[in-house]
């Protein structure tokens, strides 16, 4: 269920713009933040708020990298695999993460804490290899720094 407060906030935001559709990504992001991912329920609610059909929303939601239509972990780790990060060894980071978290690329840990996904160049080539965790960038990363980062994220939840 969408909290009344969030719903009324979004309704007010939509009312302020000339065309509700232009708010589509913002509304999707807000509901995704609330539900953890852009669920079918969120899709229906977003469609309702924006006066769009669920399909029209899905046409957008399935296009973008940072909209998750399937459940993801509490922390989504996006490892940049474009040219510079690749040159600087992103494959080692991925191998280490898979090993450490016990999942494959695209998987989510059993405790629901982490999801591992690739991402195209995130614009931090001067800090390669870089990753995004919950839209925050970390880089340049060594295996040690990556371990410390995972430890910190885990500790925050225990």
């Amino acid at each position, binding site marked *: 269920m969408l909290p009344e407060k969030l719903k009324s906030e979004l309704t007010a935001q939509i009312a302020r713009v*000339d*065309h*509700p*559709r*232009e*708010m*589509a*990504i*913002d509304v*999707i*992001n807000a509901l995704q933040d609330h539900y953890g991912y852009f669920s079918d329920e969120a899709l229906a609610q977003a469609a309702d708020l*924006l006066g*769009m059909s669920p399909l029209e929303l899905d*046409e*957008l*939601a399935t*296009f*973008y*990298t*940072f*909209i998750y239509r399937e459940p993801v972990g509490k922390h989504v780790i996006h490892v940049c*695999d*474009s*040219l*510079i990060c*690749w*040159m600087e060894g992103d494959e080692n980071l991925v191998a280490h993460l898979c090993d450490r978290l016990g999942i494959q690329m695209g998987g989510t840990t059993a405790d629901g804490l982490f999801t591992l996904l690739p991402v*195209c*160049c*995130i*614009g*931090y*080539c*001067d800090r*390669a290899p870089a990753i*995004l965790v919950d*839209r*925050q*960038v970390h880089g340049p990363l060594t295996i040690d720094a990556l371990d410390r980062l995972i430890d910190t994220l885990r500790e925050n939840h225990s």
Partner: protein
Amino acid sequence: MTATYPQVLLKNRKPDRITTLSEYREAGGYEALRRVLTEMDRQEVKTRLADALLLGRGGAGFPAGIKVSTVAEDAPFPRYLVCNADEMEPGTFKDRVFLHAEPHMLIEGMALAAYSIRASHGIIFIRPEYESAAKILEREIGIARGEGLLGERILGSDYDFEIVVHRSGGRYICGEVTAQLNALQGRRPNPKQPPPYATDKGLWGLPTLANNVETLACIPHIVKNGAQWFKDLALTPEAAGTKLFCVSGKVNRPGCYELPLGIKLSEIIETCCGGMKDGATFKACLPGGASTGYLTADHYHIEMDFDSLKKARNRLGTGAVMVFDHHCCMVAATLNLTEFFARESCGWCTPCREGFPYLRDLLWRIENGQGEAGFIPMIKTMCRHLWKSYCAFAPGGVASIESLLMNFEDEVMAHIEGKGCPFKK
């Protein structure tokens, strides 16, 4: 290291924070806007932009002065100004550095550009990875509004202009202006071939001017200091202004540097970036992001400006210099780039949507010992055909592949004949 060259956009860059509004104003910021609103007319702004030969800094290098003047005088209202802060070109991070340094320079540049076409709505389209910049912009826009520099009756004039920040859902194609306009309207961000042109019928069918962050940031300086001053900033006679170069890869000091257009590639690498990492040898670089071709050691001293690169059958692109040393496998690098384009193709037209996965498959086979000599003509033909795609995405995407075959065919053949990558032990 760069002290020898005049700094314009990054002059007041702080190591870890933005230039505040008061600092920006102390350094002469918003002076151009004040002068324009009180002393100059619209046409003057347009004239200066045209005279300054400011070329778009987002990658295509289209003359900004011409673009501004294509918004017809009698076009309908409201009119829109879109700032493209969707810096998605691999290797490019100049806008990120700039936005974390000088948000007000962009705001002022947007206000000036908007004023010149009488736009009332400004939108900054920003990639989700730059959330920190989006937050800075929203905060500083609020501050500017509080100071009467945005909003209604700017600086006491009769000019109203608002800016909002629009966060993208994150896709490379959103950097393409027509795709971006679709995205802004809550539609799938497929490109749309003109006509109509955005300056005629853009957002919601209304005139829309779209420019890159860096392009807009140049405007206050051009307005304030004049076209000639701007032209004189460049080292080569045809070029004008400085450029934010972002250098990455196998150099000692990767980063974003403001340098005059026309500076030699060798100077960027050696002087600014402290030379090649670990004393390795320069093998090649991409001069302007993933959509440009490889420049080899033959062009090590090339003058980095739009014209010189065009003459070398390449492009300045976004000025993102990605440097490879002699340990790098160019097939593997090209495979990586092709993977990027295969993943980011919007799926609208056939050659791009299907061609990149096909090319990726062929390159993967070459890199992994399954290559055949017959692949090379296949790849060449396919690349030629990908130029006939719907938008500029695919021609950009095949630039690296075409230049791989042009400059490194021996290396490709070594993969095929040796049944594997010679760079892997």
